[in-house]
């Protein structure tokens, strides 16, 4: 990866972030009614409206308002939540760790298991186990995450009692230390597995295709011809097959965050999903705008990291 490529790719982040902020600004200003109502809610008093008006410069000309707004948001000031009465950034930040834990666990599961299953399917291409894996992957890819979550809750939580139905920890007992972590992990199992399912399906399919393609190349034939065991040939093939998977994980960041939000609402996981749901019910626009910007930022960051990882893994990529 050349420094030139790195700089060029980093510079692309600026217009993307600016574009997202312009969209948020335009949405607030084209909505019916005074934008101050959108940003401060319908039940504020005159002094609060005046405060918000001054804070976001709502009494100035539109282009100036846009600049004030961008300046505010870039410095981390997303306004106040109508419902919580606190800064949006603080409300969002306190829900973030639970969601990150969920997404991180799910991605770790889907990547490791998906690559393993994909290799298995490729080595048994055309046999019943391959067909079963591919059918399973297609089904998992088609199921809405919230439905899979409900089915898991019915079968594995309510039905068997193996896993807790809802929450982050057991409300009846207060654990500390490693018992606490075990309790959280127990609550994490179902939401993480459900969120992993759709990504797992995709990783399995991609790995299978990639390994099959790599096994048909000349270098794989050479490796076989010089007498390498099939195991080692697959390992060589896998290195090249994994490149597209890196790209796909990055391009699916938005879908993963969306899936996490929906799965959280089913399992009452105390992350951004719960916050989104309660903010939707109270029409808490500043929080919803904050979540939109956070989701956008995570997609932009994921794309950036993907491109950089790809350039690092594949030295042929450079700024032309």
């Amino acid at each position, binding site marked *: 990866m050349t420094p030139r490529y790195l700089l060029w790719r980093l510079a692309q982040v600026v*217009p*993307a972030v600016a*574009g*997202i902020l312009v*969209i*948020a600004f335009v*949405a*607030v200003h084209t*909505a*019916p009614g005074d934008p101050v109502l*959108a940003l401060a809610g319908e039940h504020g008093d005159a002094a609060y409206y005046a405060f918000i008006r001054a804070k976001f410069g709502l009494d100035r000309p539109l282009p100036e308002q846009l600049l004030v707004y961008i300046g505010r948001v870039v410095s981390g000031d997303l306004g106040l939540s109508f419902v919580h009465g606190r800064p949006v950034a603080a409300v969002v930040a306190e829900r973030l760790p639970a969601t990150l834990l969920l997404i991180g666990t799910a991605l770790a599961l889907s990547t490791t298991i998906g690559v393993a299953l994909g290799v298995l399917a490729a080595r048994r*291409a*055309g046999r019943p186990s391959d067909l079963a894996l*591919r059918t399973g992957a*297609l*089904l998992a*890819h*088609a*199921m*809405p*995450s*919230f*439905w*899979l979550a*409900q*089915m898991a*809750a*019915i079968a594995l939580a*309510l039905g068997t009692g193996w896993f807790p*139905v809802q929450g982050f920890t057991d409300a009846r007992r207060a654990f500390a230390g490693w018992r606490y972590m075990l309790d959280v992990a127990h609550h994490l199992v179902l939401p993480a597995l459900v969120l992993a399912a759709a990504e797992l399906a995709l990783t399995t399919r991609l790995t*299978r*295709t990639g390994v*099959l*393609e790599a096994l048909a190349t000349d270098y794989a034939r050479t490796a076989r011809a010089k007498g390498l065991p099939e195991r080692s040939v697959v390992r060589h093939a896998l290195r090249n097959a994994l490149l597209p998977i890196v790209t796909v994980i990055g391009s699916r960041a*938005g879908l993963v*965050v*969306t899936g996490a*939000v*929906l799965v959280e*609402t*089913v399992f009452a996981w105390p992350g951004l999903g719960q916050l*989104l*749901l309660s*903010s*939707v*019910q109270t*029409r808490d*626009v500043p929080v*919803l*705008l904050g*979540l*939109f910007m956070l*989701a*956008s930022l995570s*997609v*932009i960051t994921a*794309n950036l990291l993907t491109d950089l990882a790809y350039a690092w893994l594949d030295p042929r990529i450079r700024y032309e």
Partner: protein
Amino acid sequence: MRGSIRAFGTSDMMWRTPGGAVGLFLTLALIALALLSNTLAPADPFASIAQPLSPPSRAHAFGTDDLGRDVLTAIIHGARTSLLVAASVTALAALIGIGVGALAGYRVGIVDDVLMRVTDFVLVIPRFFLAVVVIALFGAGIDRLILVLGLTSWPAIARVVRAQTLSLVSREFVDAARALGATDTRVLLRYVLPGALPPALVVISINAAGVILLEAGLSFIGLGDPSRMSWGYLANNAQRFLRVAWWVAVFPGAAIALSVLGLNLLGDALNDLLDPRAPRPT
């Protein structure tokens, strides 16, 4: 050759792969349910007609919900909402995507650069969260939902059409058409687009599947159009009764999964048909 126009004349070939046959069947079933919903289930899907939360029976094949509404009737009417949103969003996205892609592929240089930068940007927008903001600001309604999803769902289509256009404009038959005096518009519409469209259909059908999931997710968190029955709304309502009434949760989600599966399989089958190099089912 990828992007052969012959693909349109060989739809019977899709039946030869099990995936293609199932995909076509499921998609046609969704369309039939949506178009015939008033004939198949003449009752008002919101009407309370039986004992609340009664399990599946001969009279109510999928049971009833907490307000005594027939779940089967609700699902049949929900198909109409899903298909309406998916078809409208897809039509809007295809219109923009094909236009942008064809123009970018045909006008190499600054027009292409600008259009592709815009495409890359729109690809970054998280559609679900934008739709949440728009509905929270403008109120629930199917029109704004279609608009916001349609305006953000076209980049994948534009990219495919652009790539196809780029490879087609340098072909000899296009040169021949130009030499005979065809205008740019005629070259694009008559010679380039017919070749660029079949691969775009793959992306379009997979896109439609994604839109069904998005609409269901939005209705699931309570942002659907309250005047229309939808599968996501049913799943949201089922959330409170998981312990006592499994049927309220199972059937609406299954309907979503089958529709999405159908469109995905259809896309895969089209892709296999157009790209013989892709790994085929054995």
